[in-house]
């Protein structure tokens, strides 16, 4: 996949513009999707910093200054032993909570994938319904728990995008296929937020079956997540997390049916996952 292909696909994302965009990828402590996540942004010409959390925390209150987006990546932070994402979320809340709150207030984007999503909900970054500007991070109101079918499960899923969602990352996309792999991906909501999440269209993508309808049936819905929710955003749409892995579908050949797609002349020029990252970059450039 050369830069010509990228420019052909994302004609509006001129390298002159994208190289001004700065993205932070937080690494360390058992996180493990840093290479593919950084590559996604690098393919789009964005400046990516991969920073070990220990080094980031040493920077103190100004840790996030200069970044337009923070990526919370997949992996098993601290083994996810206590519960997925909990130890990392606690450490971030304790040492970087105010900086994150200020970052979001200033229009900074947040993207969390799998473990990153788990960390974001436990941090209160999502869905953050009650949080007002200038306040600390919200309390946790949703969680991601064990899949109904206990254990880790790896398979590609089909996702339908809610066009009414404020999510900036899913704009212009109707349907996506992505690899999905986790043991704790079932979204559960505190009863107080269920209604508002639905009303505000904060579930930007849902697991769907072969007919394209949201489903609770395994394995199309791999975890039993209520309302077939595969992800969640905040009201601004600029903070977004999802269980599937867009960073693992950057190349057309990642798709399990790429040979057939090519035979039928429908092989995309780039992996579909890259479109989510491109949308994030567009949102940075638009603001």
């Amino acid at each position, binding site marked *: *996949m050369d830069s010509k292909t990228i420019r052909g696909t994302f004609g509006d994302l001129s390298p002159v513009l994208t190289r001004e965009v700065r993205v932070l990828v937080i690494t360390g402590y*058992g996180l493990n999707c840093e290479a*593919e996540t950084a590559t996604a942004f690098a393919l789009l010409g964005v400046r990516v910093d991969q920073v070990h959390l220990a080094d980031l925390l040493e920077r103190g209150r100004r840790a996030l200054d200069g970044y337009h987006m923070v990526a919370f990546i997949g992996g098993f932070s601290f083994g996810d*032993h206590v519960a997925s994402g909990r130890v990392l979320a606690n*450490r971030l809340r304790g040492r970087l909570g105010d900086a994150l709150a200020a970052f979001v207030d200033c229009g900074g984007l947040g993207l969390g994938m799998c473990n990153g999503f788990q960390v974001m909900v*436990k941090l209160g970054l999502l869905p953050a319904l009650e949080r007002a500007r200038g306040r600390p991070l919200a309390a946790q109101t949703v969680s991601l728990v064990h899949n*109904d079918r206990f254990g880790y*499960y*790896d398979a590609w899923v089909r996702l339908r995008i809610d066009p009414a969602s404020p999510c900036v990352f899913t704009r212009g996309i109707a349907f996506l296929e992505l690899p999905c792999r986790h043991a704790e991906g079932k979204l559960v909501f505190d009863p107080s937020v269920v209604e508002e999440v639905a009303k505000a269209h904060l579930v930007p993508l849902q697991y769907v079956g072969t007919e394209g309808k949201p489903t609770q049936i395994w394995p199309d819905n791999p975890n039993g997540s209520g309302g077939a929710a595969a992800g969640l955003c905040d009201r601004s749409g600029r903070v977004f997390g999802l269980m599937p892995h867009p960073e693992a579908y950057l190349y057309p050949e990642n798709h399990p049916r790429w*040979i057939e797609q090519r035979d039928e002349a429908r092989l995309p020029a780039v992996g579909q996952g890259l479109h989510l990252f491109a949308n994030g970059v567009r949102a940075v450039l638009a603001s």
Partner: protein
Amino acid sequence: MTVHRLEIEARSGVDDAPAHEIARRLETWLQQSPRVVRTRKVVWLDFDLSEREAARVLAALVDPVAEVGVLGMLPDEIDMPAGAAPLWIVTVGFLPGVTDAVATNVKRAAEDALGRTLPGSAYTATLHRIWGLSETQVRHAADELLHNRLIHRLHVARSPRRLDLEVPRGGTDRAPGVQRIPLCRASDTELTRISKDGMLALSLAEMRAISTHFSTLGREPTDAELECLAQTWSEHCKHKIFASPIRYVDEHGAASVIERGLFQTYIRGATEAVAERRRVDQVDPIDADFLVSVFHDNAGVVRFTERDHLVYKVETHNSPSALDPYGGAMTGIVGVNRDSYGTGLGADLLTNVWGYCMGDPRYVGRLPAGLMHPRRIRDGVHAGVVDGGNHSGIPYSRGFELFDDRYLGKPLVYCGTVAVMPVEVAGFATHVKRPAVGDKIVMVGGRIGKDGIHGATFSSVELGDDSPAQAVQIGDPITQRMMFDMLAEARDRGLYTSMTDNGAGGLSSSVGEMAEATGGARIDLAAAPVKYPGLAPWEILISEAQERMTLGVPAHCLDALLALAARREVEATVLGEFTDTGRFEVLYGDERVCDLDLTFLHAGVPLPVLSARWKPPSCSDDEAWIDSLRDPGPELLALLERPNLTSGEQRARSYDHEVKGLSVIKPFVGRRNDVPSTATVMRVRHRRNEGVVLAEGVHPFYSDIDTHAMAQAAVDEAVRRVLCAGARLDRLSALDNFCWPDPVVSSQNPDGEHKLAQLVRCCRGLDEACRAYGVPLISGKDSMKNDADLDGVRISIPPTLLISAMGQTPDVRRTLSLEPRSVGDTIFLLGSTANELGGSELARSHDARGACVPRTDVERCMVRYRAFEAIRDAGQVRSAHVVGRGGLAVSLAHMALASERSLWIQLDSGELSDAALLFSESTGRIVFTCAAADRDTCQRAFTAPGVAEIGTVGGRGARGGERLQVQRRERLLIDVDLPQLRQAFSGGLRGL
């Protein structure tokens, strides 16, 4: 110290998924039907906290949305089912000193919550509330499912219960000391007893050699010296069976001697011959040999691109997996990760492979006391490798399961890792270690405990009633991952000059081996970080506690390295330095615990001449079972349902297939992603198109007839698989993993000479195949004592050679799957089919052995493979699959299942029986498809009768109806539709 207990469980209304899984297994495994099972996490904080502090830690651990938790005990009656039923509380924690990775992170969370470092430890357990079982049933469930007495503490109680604040603190107050072992004047009987009682696995000849050595020195050895020699001289570390001369007597009684031993003669011999051939043929540019580093490092290294080399290693972890399947298998995968990582100055881990040979999980016969049921071993092994690989962020590429009741005694657990090594880092070639006198010896990673003591020697003897619990270790992938992240930074900054992992034999092996390069080493064990007090120096020296690497660090880099480690929360400790004294010196403070001459340590082991005697098994012509066969259609369906041929997809989906985002041809392919791929393909670096192609060959059941054929079939299938997917024939390499029943004759092992002859024949077959295919063996491993003597029963595995092939492709976008692609495409069969049903899955399915085992004409096969490579690279091959276990019919079934297209097959093959034609496992065969327009070109590429057109690819009907139809002239041999095929293929081990 004040201890606090926490209990945490899923909030009412939130599913307790782990409990459902336990209930399911109680039902399917033990036919128990409890009314309700609920689980609960128990945490003990042994930190001397105040109540307020403990409450803050609790708040940090409990999920406010999904969980409830308390200090002390939650009520036992939560969610109690209606109607009175006995409530059992079964708590499963860890024994003192057993790795508890959850507790490590509980401690981190507690320190974060309180903002200070804490003395002491956390401990965890799982509490099960079980309603509706009798005490007998509960104890049975605890023994057969919930706990393993070698690693777990079990507490079974009736509710109401008392608050249990007892924690399994490790260690003792015993002052560590050094013992001298009186060997110099010991009799043979005493020497034998000392070896056996000490779990040293040293033979009498070896004990005598040690006794003589120390007599000459005029002193007795210390316990540490004797232990260090036992580790270094163990079969596991020294590969004595492969190093010793062998007197081989063939079936006619003619004797010959293999003077240089099997490794030098055949394994290294084949590889050097391949390397020489490449030089003569000028295959590689000058100064760019394909073989970069073989035989002397942790893993083999071959050239890949101008920027990267590839590293590959496959290990076995059989004995530990028999005792604790989860921990044993997990240390198998994280251990081989360290091998590949620790090659040269360090390589980036890319992908894992696994393969398990086990007893049939549906086994219903009697099991000798002391053996676990194979379904439990299988579950635990999968779970251990799943967690080890997934938590490390490494996808898996290849996996297989083979079942045979001879694996009941010791399961074979193969784990491997491919890594990518940058050609240069910090200005030096990465594949070369550069230890220097004066370099500091630094241990990084986890702490040392009693876990894994005697792992190397234990794996060098058969499994017996007295097998040591300490040999079991549990891995902690996150600690290892944090260590690797730190080491990668250190490597790129050039902060160390040599590295090796601490695996078998612990520090005694890692430092002992590295010391050879400079000619000496001196370490002080008092500096070594330990998990708990009371470890004797010899225990520290040989402990195989996990997640540790040993580095050689130049003095001027030491501060930078230690500072980096501290920043990354990785423990790093200076233990000593490399010297040139010719000695391996170990101190404990002021006390000298070990002072061994390096030459004696590494070259002092006596190698006896081993005896091998080949007697071919009586080749019965009794093929009566063939007359009892059903029609081929039902036979095919029955085969697809057998555990050795069933899909295996659902198990495999517990493993991460996708992390790193580089996968191209995945482990499972097809429209429903349920057909195991012929080979897997993966990009090696982001934004590059070169790829690595992986596959394997393993045919232990052919060993029942001839291990020579077995070895060649394994090499041939591995090569053929990667060839199908798109690997270059001139860039192949392979690994050899031998798992054997004890091949040294003794009173307990009367047929040892035969097993050694089988090993000799296996090596010869391997050697011939590797030379013919031009495949170097870049690394390998042998596990030679795969027997279990328990309860008066001896169970020995069939001789098993796993060949793991690593191929390379310049462009992953040109690679192929087994799936036929288009209606009207022509199907060809390359290679010839013979009446070779011996050891086949068909024969086994009829409890027969068969007479003729598949023989491989390696020279002729190679000619065909070159021709195939040419049409493949010309773009004329559209899909390709091997014919392997189960024969042609099974390969065709795979193709139909993957494509969901009809296959119309017309066979017309001479004198062969229908059974041989369809189910014979003759090697060297590939089924491939091409466009009808390329049919003649493809046909002409091979000399007849090497290739035959056997059919055409059908379409996909609007309403299904796709079928596999095989005709022989006018006769319809097989006519089955896809739903029938899929039901059989996915049904084999369903629910287990």
